């Protein structure tokens, strides 16, 4: 949500209290989880 609101990786890192290098990892995992969940929901 933070990234898709237009915040940069540095700003997302500050907001969540994590390292900049971890933002991409969290974002990737979140999007992958969302994709799987939407796939599951739309295939039911």
């Amino acid at each position, binding site marked *: *949500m*933070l*990234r*898709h*609101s*237009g*915040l*940069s*990786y540095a700003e997302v890192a500050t*907001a*969540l209290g*994590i390292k900049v*290098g*971890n*933002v*991409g*990892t*969290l*974002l*990737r*995992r*979140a*999007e*992958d*989880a*969302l*994709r*799987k*969940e*939407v*796939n599951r*929901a*739309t*295939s039911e």
Partner: protein
Amino acid sequence: MRHLSDGILRRIYDEPLALTATDQAHYDTCSECKTRFQAIAGTARTTSALLDLPAFTPEPVGAFRSLRARIQREEAARPPRWYERWLVRTTPRLRPLATPAIAVLLAAAFVTGIAVSGAAASLIRVFEPNSIVAVQVSPSDFAGGTALLDYGQVKWLPDAPKLQPLSNATTARSQSGLPVLVPASLPKGVSGPVSFGVVSHATGSLTFDAERLRASAAQKGVRVNPMPSTINGSTLIVNAGPALIEVWGLSANTSEAQIPTLVIAQTRIPTVDSTGATAAQLEDYLLSQPGVPPEIAAQLRAIKDPASTLPVPIPQGLATTEAVQVNGVSGLMIKAAIAAGVVWEKNGVIYAVGGQLTPDQVLAIATTLH
């Protein structure tokens, strides 16, 4: 060297210039990382498309608070779902974000009608450019009316892309999701203030309809080749934008001619997927239409891999082109009498720099953008 992590590849999509020199060198030569990047970028594009709800403006701080409170209430009322158990095991910090985002995604899928799973499995990627080629055109090439024919039903989700003028760099970055690029120095004759324009991300579709094309051609009195059954009924899904444009040299007085001295533009590479027709079938049919100038058709047919090549129209007799190296990749330099421009693609983003400048000045700006 070890392959780049998913996190680094994901960051390339959002912040293409943030790679370290070592990571960039690995990425440039690693086909496995590039393939993984395509998958990660595809998921990011899908997420962006689903979040582009009409009249939906994310308000992160308020949303974060209210959703955290909602999750706490829901957690007390029901056992955790599978993805929450997974997130707890792997990334506890992400947990507050998961449920609301999924709710938004499901709502978006419902509103837009995008069937993510079934359609995605059968889509054919027919266009995703990673190289650029010049195509010579003349104004008379487009005098015919074939291009204006109705080939089928067009839809945009949520809306057709439109340019939004902005005067603020922060807003431009926020609305485009792309970094505002600045050259190390501006050449003589180029000065501020800078104007910004953002074209939002949009997903569009065209469903080919042989009967509509036939009726449209008859109405306009134009002859067209009948649409083959391999194309009729196929849908092309276009993913375009966002794009960010920075312009120097526009006068505040709108009654004067507006000729910018420098333009820096960037956009995520557009993609086109097909539900049936292949790239070769589409090329064969569309380029064989009577209204397509033979010279342009010949140039486009000569492109070895049309699915991954972006044709850039160059006005014949007014400009010339040559291949140049820009930031470690091949680019296309366009030279005209009093202006020049360079276009290149890197890490999933197409960049263009141009203006009332010499080719050397354009290249100096392009290579120092940060």
